[in-house]
């Protein structure tokens, strides 16, 4: 096992000197190896899907239904959903409501500040295809600004719909991780040791 892990990083150069190779590539290959282990993959999936922490960003009127969903009747915290103040330590963006031009710039900046891996839930009819304000001079669609993972229709959607969308996102994360595991085992890693997808 150990011999398979260490790629040909030790080469004998001229006059017997050692060439240790690129440490960055070594670290990447080590991480890929750990993540393609079946047990570790399951633990990482469990960690991602049960701690989806959104950044504090309220976009428009669907925010009241998200606040009601964090209330005691439709408790979203039991699914691991806790709003956190620092975008650099959160991994979810919930776009609730219409995106105006000013707000789209802010959302894009917050998105770029978050580290990988990260996901987006888009809530409401206004981000699907315009909603009732579809031909306004100041609105933008969400898919022109960010890559969206789950859409929740409604105007505003019920808090149970938001809870269902969080569960759907967990299924999507599990599928993504299982696909990664299959491809790495099949040897879809290319020469440099990085997965080809």
């Amino acid at each position, binding site marked *: 096992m150990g011999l398979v892990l260490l790629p040909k990083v030790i080469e004998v150069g001229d006059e017997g000197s050692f060439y240790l190779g690129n440490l960055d590539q070594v670290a990447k290959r080590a991480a890929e190896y750990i993540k393609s282990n079946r047990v570790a993959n399951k633990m990482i999936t469990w960690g991602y899907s049960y701690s989806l922490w959104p950044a*504090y960003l309220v976009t428009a009127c669907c925010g009241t239904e998200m606040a009601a969903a964090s209330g005691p009747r439709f408790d979203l915290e039991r699914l691991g959903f806790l709003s956190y103040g620092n975008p650099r330590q959160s991994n979810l963006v919930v776009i609730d409501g219409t995106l105006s031009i*000013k707000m789209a710039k802010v959302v894009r900046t917050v998105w770029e500040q978050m580290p990988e891996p990260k996901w987006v839930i888009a809530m409401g009819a206004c981000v699907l295809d315009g909603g009732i304000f579809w031909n306004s001079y100041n609105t933008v669609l969400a898919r022109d600004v960010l890559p969206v993972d789950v859409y929740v229709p409604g105007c505003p959607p019920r808090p149970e719909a938001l809870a269902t969308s969080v569960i759907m996102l967990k299924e999507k994360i599990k599928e993504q991780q299982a696909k990664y595991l299959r491809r790495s085992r099949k040897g879809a890693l290319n020469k440099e040791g990085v997965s080809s997808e």
Partner: protein
Amino acid sequence: MTQEIKTIPFTYEALSQLKMSEGVLELQIGPAHAGSGHMRIVAWVEGDTVVKVDPDIGFVHRGVEKLSEDRIYIKAIPMVERPSLVDTVNANLGYVMALERLLGIEPPPRAQYIRVITAEISRIMSHLYGIAIYGIFMGSSTVFMWAMADREPFIDLLQELTGARITYSHIIPGGVRWDLPKDFAENAEIALKYLENRTKDYEKVWINNPVVVARSMGVGKLSAEGAIRLGVVGPNLRASGVKYDIRKEEPYAAYEEFDFEVPTFKEGDSYSRLLQRVEEIKQSIHIIRQALKRLPDGKIIYEDYYKRMSPLMKKIYDEKGRVKFTLMLTSLSPPKGEAVSRVEGGRGEMFYYLVSDGGKAPYRFRVVTPSFRNLPFFTHVMPGHKLADIPVIYGSIDYFPPEADR
């Protein structure tokens, strides 16, 4: 600490002079922040004292006034409800009142009583939301959870009546759309009694809490002359000592037949604004009880519109108490003219101005919401306080950015 009302010059020369003086730091409390809502508060601080505040709004501006010129009259009802999302019935009522004044019709008495009942329930929900946001801005999640939970019985009441959680579109020109179900009066009594018992819990935990008293007493003071000069509206105005409520000054929709009081406080600081909202909830409970006792019988839609319904629609009305949209309602064209209406919402006075030129869409529709008129609190009241007082003042005036931006 006492705060005089002074007009701060907004010229660019004054701005650049502020920047050059030493020790003045510009802070941007932006939209991605736990204590700012959907707006950006730009504050200049010197040490710990706030020198100048400039609100940067417009993050939720969708252009309701321009869009309504492109759609028929009845389609403006959901567009007017969505901005003031916590208090939708009063917004709906104001627009429909202006439209009825243009058309020259009056709804029957039973419809007026149902309008009053739903409007007062909406006012209770709006005040509870204000208390929740005030709590979470001060850092207490207990009051946030309690107030959000106490809104749910009233949401269930209106969900049984209309089918939706918060955006009902219940009031249409000529009357209302659904009649009260048979057990509405008993369920309403259960919900009201529950809320009356809960106010004792709130008093023990939140209103008599020494932390709340220390942080909010004496903070954000506004005198009566200052309130009249700056043009603030709603509970903020009444907590400063001015006794002005549109339900008493220009009564609309059967409010003349109920007897209720308009509470006021003298001090005008954040603590009295909190107490003002609790007192208004008690008055709303009193009005709902009177209305349920004396509910008149009759139709819930204007007589002329009822006569023009098809036989199938009349059958649905007689069996289920539900008004379906006739061709008359979807092709309204009022005569040429203008109309103005004012409603007392949960946060203050909502103003509607409608100009018609005889077509199917409005020629000009103007709406001014109460949050937009509470904006001078940022520029004139906040300077002089400490930095930690900004969320306290913001939460106490109950400013809701989607409503201000429309």
